């Protein structure tokens, strides 16, 4: 078992003819992902590595029975691409694009609330179910199939933790990069709920960071509803207030000081979630759970 993506996912890549889209489609296919179509306005009728390209997502979904989309569309056109994917409709949309204007995302989020589609991202590395399929830009070779679920706001930090897990012989059910933007589709609670309902996931590593209140909400969810053990990590303990640390969403507000690492760590500890001081410590906790 796994969450979000598996062998059966039929994937359409939006932006498949662009440099990134083409490169990562090839990587996804090599990993075993069932990419059935591409969608790029004006490029209908072309092929990329034998994958048919359609002008619209709607057409791609109908012709090829696609149920999932991965979005590599540049930021200026990404909101339009997301509206199109939500309208198709698809079950799952994974938005890799970084730098989508915030007000565009606010409108997409408004639309998302009216649909049954699960959006992951934007500004995320994607989703991978090791040994089955990957959606996005994650390096498949560091993952190993197993029974630990992973959810993270950061790409390379996810890789760091996964690398440590894999090197100790601990595999993963699914890893979900939820993205570093302030407005995202799938949040920690959504991902944790999916892992809780996945019988194969025996433990979960959750990597949060400063900014917003998602980790605090996740902590109360874990405390109230979850049986699967969770170990946490929070990046940005040393971040000064009022400065964005790379990710658009990674900011401790000035004055009131909300979104601090301390508040998140305290909330998680209160919910019985151990939080590692280093990525290695997170892996120690996970090992202890299994």
């Amino acid at each position: 078992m796994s969450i979000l993506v598996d062998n059966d996912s039929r994937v359409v890549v939006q932006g498949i003819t662009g440099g990134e889209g083409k490169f990562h489609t090839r990587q996804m296919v090599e990993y075993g992902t069932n990419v059935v179509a591409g969608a790029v306005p004006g490029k209908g009728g072309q092929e990329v590595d034998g994958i048919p390209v359609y002008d619209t997502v709607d057409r791609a979904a109908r012709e090829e029975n696609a149920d999932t989309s991965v979005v590599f569309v540049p930021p200026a056109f990404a909101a339009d691409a997301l509206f199109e994917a939500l309208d198709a409709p698809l079950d799952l949309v994974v938005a890799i694009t970084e730098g989508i204007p915030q007000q565009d995302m606010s409108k997409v989020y408004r639309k998302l609330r009216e649909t049954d589609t699960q959006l992951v991202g934007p500004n995320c590395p994607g989703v991978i179910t090791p040994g089955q399929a990957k959606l996005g830009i994650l390096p498949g070779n560091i993952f190993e199939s197993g029974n630990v679920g992973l959810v993270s706001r950061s790409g390379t930090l996810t890789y760091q933790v996964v690398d440590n897990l894999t090197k100790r012989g601990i595999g993963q059910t699914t890893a979900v990069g939820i993205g570093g933007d302030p407005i995202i589709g799938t949040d920690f609670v959504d991902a944790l709920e999916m892992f809780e309902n996945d019988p194969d996931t025996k433990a979960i590593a959750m990597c949060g960071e400063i900014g917003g209140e998602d980790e605090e909400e996740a902590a109360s969810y874990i405390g109230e509803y979850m049986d699967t053990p969770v170990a946490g990590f929070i990046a940005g303990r040393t971040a000064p207030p009022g400065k964005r640390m790379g990710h658009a969403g990674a900011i401790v507000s000035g004055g009131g000081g909300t979104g601090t690492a301390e508040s998140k760590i305290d909330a998680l500890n209160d919910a019985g979630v151990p939080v590692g001081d280093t990525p290695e410590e997170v892996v120690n906790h996970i090992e202890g759970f299994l």
Partner: protein
Amino acid sequence: MWMKLHEYQAKGVFADAGVPVPDSKLASTVDEAVDAAEDIGYPVAIKAQVQVGGRGKAGGIELVDNAEEAREAAENIIGMDLKGLHVDRVLVEGAVDFVNELYVGVTMDRNEGEPVAMVSTRGGVNIEEVAAEDPEAIEREHIDPAFGMQPYESRKAVYEAGVDREVAGDVASVLRTLFQLWDDSDATEIEVNPLMITADGDVVAADAVMNIDDDALFRHPDLAEMEDEAAEDDLEAKANEYGFDYVRLSGNVGIIGNGAGLVMTTLDLVDYYGGQPANFLDIGGGAKAERVTNALDMVFSDENVDSVVFNIFGGITRGDEVAKGINEALESFDEIPKKVVVRLAGTNAEEGMDILNTDLVTVEVTLEEAVQRAVEYAEEEAQ
């Protein structure tokens, strides 16, 4: 990221949109400031144009009644160091005789994914402190991004906040204009604190905060032009040029890495092992020689830096390619001014570590070891 406008820039935008602002002039010399004060008529406020909170308390704002005082104030403020920022310019502004100070603003509520309009009768003080100690004192009205602010929503926010009936209509109108501006200019935050109410019942925006979403600047060329003038720190301006996410901090261990979360973690580990991070620098995907050279140039330009830790997780970009980039970059320096510790992980990390030129860098296998070594080097160098 976002572009923060200076007060004078934001007030220019407000005035164009029809939000009442006091008469004002920008001055970069003492003589210009005095001339401006004479033109506007006393009393005037002389306000440092730097982007830090609490300018008044720090001596960056003075209220003056005549030319002599104006000269003295301008001499004090122009060239001063305000919370680490050099003051190059002042805004000379007609003082407003107010009876009341309000707060109005529009920002994004990230949890709801929706804009929120805010009104409070507790203006003129740090609103985040008000929010922390008495959240009820701020009236919040969420706005549906699909439809924008409806007039009733602006009235509701103003009445619920307890604004005097005599001025409520005008305040609601200012709020609607601010929302429109927020929407039209892809702002992430717009704030007037204080919005002053005069004895005659006029409303005047005495301060102005306006932050624009960097990711949307491509569709606002007029606002993008203001960016150079809005830049503060020289190194941060340089980072913009190179296209790095960079934040300068006060420590002495320089940090370069890829991916925001991993770079933040590297900072945290420097602190955890007893050192002090000098900066956050995310080099982004890949690590081509040119980007590595630029990143090292950035970090070495910071005179506080005593050592550097380079932490790269190779994902799709292979570790051996990264190592070649690092070698090439380091070989381009005549002399490497500070010790550099490199840690590579992920795809082809071992091949990468074999390639790295150990005459130029110290190689460590784990993140923890690399950080500890860089902290050690910084301590030695600082002595």
